[in-house]
């Protein structure tokens, strides 16, 4: 009797752990996919992928898609979509060019004006969607054409270049560097600080759950996740520190992620977004001001698109009428790879960021390997399909009955 118990115990334990992991399959799968893709390219590119300069470029070159993905995931959680973001990026970039080089407005003021412009664009689309009740697909499809046209008109089909050095730093600059050689101390410091914040935040959360007598995730899983997160942050900090230091867009992106992740997870507004996406009628009958929330979501998307437009323009040092084409599809793909549901109500900011990183890594890795753009597009399409198919399969498996 005792011997059989001793034998079954570790088996039961292993099964329990496996059971927990399969429960978290979506989350685990997403991060596993990211790691597998990194390792795959690290091996096939003979170590180029994780070289400091490449990591730095990866962050900088994907920043605007990641920024857009943050706004897009919120829109998609609410059950809408925004097809116009690429055109808005071009329009805002164009207006930034016109303001700075033709109207000679100081660049910090131009940035503020551009963000306001983005809010107005979002308010325009939000009005038709929220209050006139035209499906977002139609309104933003129209917006895609309208703002592309507006960008071309603003630029008179010319390109504007160059931009002032200070403005360009927004897209491709780095935080001031302190060390003279080796690892740049500010970047290391920021990395350490970020991981300390992560660890303390998680511990506080866990402690509070315990205090309220709520069930928490198993300790081993908590520690594993936290250790992995902290390690990742510090590792990336070291990579960046051995090159040029911290890209300014990374700071912007980091702040956006922290703020919006908190808004979506814990604020009343964020909850209302999930409620609307999950069941619009039930939300309305619970007193959620559904129209106002929808309107604000699109205003927010407009501001975020404007920010992405500014970053993109600053990075290329060029305002072009064809800027940002295809951004809407990349950011939408990032959101769905990140686990959002087409029907709304499900998705996370961190998921969308990881989804965006997966797309960015594929772009980057395949470019280094010299894969033609035609095959890059084909492979990205299949990855998107596979991710969503996995989701659907997973839902069916657990949804039983």
């Amino acid at each position: 009797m005792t011997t059989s118990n001793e034998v079954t115990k570790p088996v039961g334990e292993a099964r329990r752990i496996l059971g927990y992991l399969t429960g978290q399959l979506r989350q685990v799968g997403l991060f596993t996919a990211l790691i597998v893709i990194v390792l795959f390219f690290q091996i096939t590119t003979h170590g180029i992928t994780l070289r400091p300069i490449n990591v730095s470029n990866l962050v900088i070159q994907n920043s605007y898609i990641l920024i857009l993905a943050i706004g897009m995931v919120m829109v998609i959680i609410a059950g809408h979509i925004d097809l116009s973001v690429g055109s808005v990026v071009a329009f805002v970039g164009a207006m930034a060019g016109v303001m700075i080089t033709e109207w000679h407005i100081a660049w910090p003021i131009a940035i503020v004006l551009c963000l306001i412009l983005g809010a107005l664009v979002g308010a325009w689309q939000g009005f038709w969607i929220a209050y006139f009740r035209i499906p977002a697909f139609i309104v933003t499809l129209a917006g895609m054409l309208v703002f592309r046209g507006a960008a071309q008109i603003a630029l008179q089909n010319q390109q504007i270049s160059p931009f002032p050095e200070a403005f360009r730093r927004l897209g491709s600059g780095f935080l001031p560097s302190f060390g003279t050689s080796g690892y740049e101390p500010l970047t290391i410091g920021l990395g350490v600080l970020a991981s300390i914040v992560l660890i303390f935040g998680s511990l506080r959360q866990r402690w509070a759950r315990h205090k309220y007598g709520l069930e928490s995730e198993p300790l081993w899983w908590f520690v594993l996740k936290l250790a992995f997160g902290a390690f990742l942050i510090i590792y990336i900090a070291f990579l960046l520190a051995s090159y040029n230091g911290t890209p300014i867009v990374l700071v912007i992106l980091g702040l956006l992620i922290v703020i919006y992740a908190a808004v979506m997870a814990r604020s009343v507004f964020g909850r209302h977004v999930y409620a609307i996406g999950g069941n619009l009628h039930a939300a309305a009958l619970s007193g959620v001001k559904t129209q106002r929330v929808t309107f604000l979501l699109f205003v927010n998307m407009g501001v975020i698109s404007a920010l992405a437009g500014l970053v993109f323009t600053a990075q290329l040092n060029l305002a072009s009428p064809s800027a940002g084409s295809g951004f809407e599809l990349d950011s939408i793909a990032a959101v769905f790879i990140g686990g959002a549901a087409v029907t709304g109500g499900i998705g996370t900011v961190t998921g969308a960021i990881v989804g965006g990183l997966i797309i960015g890594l594929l772009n980057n890795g395949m470019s280094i390997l010299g894969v033609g753009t035609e095959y890059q597009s084909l492979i990205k399409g299949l990855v998107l399909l596979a991710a969503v198919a996995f989701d659907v399969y997973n839902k069916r498996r657990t949804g039983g009955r």
Partner: protein
Amino acid sequence: MTTNILEMQGITKTFPGVKALQNVSLGVKRGHVHAICGENGAGKSTLMKVLSGVYPAGSFDGQIVFEDAKVDFKNINDSEAAGVVIIHQELALSPYLSIAENIFLGNEQQTRGWIDWNKTNLEASKLLARVGLKDNPITKITDIGVGKQQLVEIAKALSKRVKLLILDEPTAALNDEDSAHLLELIKQLQSQGITSIIISHKLNEIKAIADAVTIIRDGRAIETLDMHADEISEERIIKGMVGRELESRYPDHTPMIGEELLRVEHWNVFHPIDTTRQIVKDASISVRAGEIVGIAGLMGAGRTELAMSLFGKSYGVKISGKVFKRGVEIDTGTVSKAIQHGIAYATEDRKRYGLNLIDDITRNVSGSALSKLAGLFGFVDDHKEATVAGKYLKSLNIKAPSVDSITGKLSGGNQQKVVLSKWMYADPDVLILDEPTRGIDVGAKYEIYTIIHRLADEGKGVIMISSELPELLGMCDRIYTLAEGRITADVPRSQATAEILMQHMTKERERSTSDNV
């Protein structure tokens, strides 16, 4: 040829983690109407899905013998080819196709590979005549009521030369008139030699038409009662379903009625699309603290419309009338204003209007009072939130593994308790409960009644809308009757009987017909 048309033997069906059916055997006699009863989640629908091939042969243990031959249905097409047709609770008709198109959907009437519309419509009208529908077969499904849609489903089954017709809660969405018609039709089909299996919660219907009833509890067939052999009472069936004698279907309650809480005067509402149609006509109602007020009315009388128009104009247009709270006129023009004034409305359709089915219990409970949990910068205290949900989980006896359970996976009774929790947490003064026990099994109903009494005892005013007269008679201190949008009577508990209520509920209809004469 044996007398049994169907013999299900030793059916066991397991889902991951759950044994839905355990060694269930069921014999149905040829030409009988055989009822299946059981609480929600007992396994009735699963058994019927096994029978109709929704769960293919091989995915369950045991065997099915239909018309003296062992059958292995791999899908619905197989079972329909054999003459077993199931009509699900949620009707499966395509709303923008015509009646005829729906009847022959998947079985199109063709001539040389093209659809023969004349034949389609001709055959459809023959079938419609058999179910007693006089509508033109080219009418679109969306233009006919739920009662008629149910008949179209049966016509569709007849087109497939049905031998065994399975009806899952066929009268759940029907009014009394349509229900009676449907039951009559089932009897007619019986005389034409069609055997029926009917799943129902409504025991009076079972008594009226069933020849035998099989009771299923917790995935097992408990007993089969012959409805002709001995006098089977409703209480006898209930006892089998819940496994215990229910002393009373309604808990005892002594009302403590206080001052007037809410008064509605001269309330008028028009249909949102057909704005000339008046849905609520000059209705005036009131509710006092601690009072449970019922609203009785036939389907289409405007009960839900009255309630929803009061709750933030959630239904209808051209709304006029006054609402007073403790004697002071208030504005209930939007849902949030109504909630602020302490009014809550728990919908009759919890899946469509009540719950976020893809989210967990916690977030559904906090849904209408999130601001109570919000602190600095509008951030929700999610620990406190979970504690609140946990409290309701316990006090309302919600059967779920934890507050993190997804509401879409709960049973109807537990979903209803989540909806009630949501409104209890919002702490309103007046609760409008629209069909609070629809589609809920007997045991859970009793618990919901207890909760309603508890709310009244806390000094809240409860307005309860229900299609089931016994429920109103058992629960309410006062009952309004509504007929075609008009309040026709205000009956105190002491005078209320089913006959009196029914009289007032049909008053308007009689008068309007006599007007025409």
